[in-house]
């Protein structure tokens, strides 16, 4: 086993733990950045430089888009915002990640020879195990969105583990997809944060069924 790859795999998992555990929005985005930058490296053989560079630039751009939304802007009157942290705390999240890491490593190939690194499989399982609760049970826009980005990244890791190192075109498309996901999340999170003092929290109105009033559309502008 390549020790450098093992170190990167651990960094990816640690980044995920930070991303789903912290209440500080900027810290969670830092964790996400570590995951997105480390994920494409977890391949055997190492991806071609151009493809790798594409993913890393895309990861930095994705993190930056989210950073813009999460940073404090006291001058603009936007209050500091926190995101919903893990309900079980980072130690428990770490244990969940460790268990999933072992499962992913042991189940590498899922019953058939795989073309990629078992470390990618392990990291993919760990990231997915932590991302799933955040995605499905999150109560704020940023947490659900971060979970969604992590979930897709986990799927990409498992794909690299099963199918081998992605080619340059796949790296380019994957990078673009992650940037679009992060950009959409940044737009949604920014919109939520700019509306009132609730930070990134969900609106109660959007969570349940509602009847639209006749004048709900701006048809009066006609």
């Amino acid at each position, binding site marked *: 086993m390549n020790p450098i790859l093992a170190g990167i795999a651990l960094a990816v998992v640690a980044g995920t733990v930070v991303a789903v555990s912290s209440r500080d929005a900027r810290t969670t985005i830092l964790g996400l950045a570590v995951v997105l930058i480390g994920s494409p490296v977890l391949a055997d053989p190492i991806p071609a430089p151009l493809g790798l560079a594409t993913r890393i630039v895309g990861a930095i751009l994705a993190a930056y888009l989210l950073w813009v939304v999460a940073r404090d802007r006291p001058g603009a009157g936007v209050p500091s915002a926190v995101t919903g942290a893990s309900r079980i705390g980072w130690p428990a999240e770490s244990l969940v990640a460790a268990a999933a890491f072992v499962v992913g490593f042991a189940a590498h190939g899922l019953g058939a020879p795989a073309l990629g690194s078992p470390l990618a499989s392990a990291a993919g399982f760990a990231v997915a195990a932590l991302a799933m609760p955040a995605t499905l049970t999150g109560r704020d826009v940023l947490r659900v969105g971060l979970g*969604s980005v992590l*979930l897709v990244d986990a799927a990409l890791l498992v794909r690299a583990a099963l199918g081998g190192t992605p080619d340059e075109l796949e790296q380019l498309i994957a990078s673009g*997809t992650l940037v679009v*996901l992060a950009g959409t999340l940044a737009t*949604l999170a920014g*919109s939520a944060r700019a*509306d009132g003092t609730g930070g990134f929290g969900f*609106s109660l109105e959007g969570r349940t069924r509602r009847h639209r009033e006749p004048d709900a559309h701006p*048809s*009066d502008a006609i």
Partner: protein
Amino acid sequence: MSLLPFLLVTGLGAIATLMLRDRQRAATRVGVVALIAAVVTGLLIRPSQVIEIGTGGIATTDYLRLFLVLGALVALLLAVVGEATGSRRDAPAVALGILATSALALSLPDPGVAVLAATAGGAFGALVALAPVGGRVGATVGARVLRATAVASTMAIAATAWFGRDLSQLAAQPIVFGLAYLAFALAVAIRFGAIPAHTWAARLTEAVPETTLPLVTALAPAALAIVALAWADASVAPLALDLGSVRVVVLAVAIASIVLASIAAWIQEDIEHVVGYAIVGDAGVVMLAIAALDPAAWAPARTWILSFVVARSAFAAWAAATRATFGTGRITELRGWAVRAPVLAVVLALVVVASIGLPGLAAAEARGALVGLVLDGPLAAAVLLGTLSPLLYYGRLFFFGIERPGRTPRVPWRPVISGIDLTHLRGWLARTWSDNRLVTATGSAALLAVLALVVSAGAFGSPQAAAGLPPTIGISVESFAPGEPLPPEGSDAPSAAPPDATPDGSPSASSAPTAPSQEPSGSPSFEAVPTT
């Protein structure tokens, strides 16, 4: 490569429109101009062209061109209706983003990579939920869309990854193939908002204008559905496994969506809910195609998808125009709408014919063929009857529409155009636009309805394009121009391997297409090693 201008126009147009979103007028103008350019560049796409990038690449097909041209045209008309009736500022940007990602998804030969592009399209769709005021509600609904997209994407990526390698040494039960197939099928169901995964789509319906709904729940998932069909026919169907139990689940989703969505639409009080559930019901037919696991479903499924996208967009445009005309979307408050606005009645009648279809229309034949492929006996007849269940809610709409409106006057439908003021042309244009918003909305909806009927009838060579092979690198595979080689007769499947081949589960996307077999092989194409 003729696809590049389309990708540039839609991709850069989406980015530019989003960057201008704080300046609504400028963003709308840029978006509409980019959509017009998308129609033009879509028409310039030439089939059977390839760009090789590394070991992969992108390729164009007739179906790709038709899908993109119709998609761009539909998006343009929806944008015009939306602008005339007062819509969200991000709708053109979302449409452009979905078109760009759909172009990629349908031109990538590798389904695993195409899924990623389709995922980006779904993510773009979340932006339509945002409103200039009350951003938190929109963001909440948008986050649900993003979540559904991510979950579906993860399932689809995992499914394609499972098949994308040599599985001849598989040490697991064949049911894992079924699970991979089920994962991708359910991913498509989630993206369409098919029942029972319809909650996010229902919330979206309540939060966005009608004109944006088909972009998110029809156009964007349609690209993923086409990728799923290609993947299933190339990777799963040739294995000739007994996946009956798994197919039952997919079939249940399809039938539930077809029948229950129509009932749900029938009992709704708001026309936007009717539109939302109508889309879900038609998506059920797409799920039928995925449940078929038969190469013969390839052509009718893709024919139906084209018709479905255009017809449901026309229905949404009608709903938006009706709401703007009468100031309400409550069906009970729309009594006499057809009498007061006969043009809108004609538009809805066209939509009914396009979506229900008359015998002989390509869409109706495709739907019937799909039902016949998946089911037989009384159940097939029942489901076929179920596909006509939209008549329930159409009938209800017309029932309220033909009630006597009392002394309420008819809605004027002629355009109001004053003399051109050459000294202040800009002001004259603004005034003319403002005076004719309703006429513009109704006219655009009528155009969409006519387009829907034409596509439903099989115009533009849609059945032939739908029967073509998926994009392939290395050989010109899809051309129906005179004098060029046609696909093998009777081959409307994308990739099925010849009977004497030994499929190993790896996708045949990058290999040259072979004549598909109409008959599945009688035995599994791999040896399962029992696990202990």
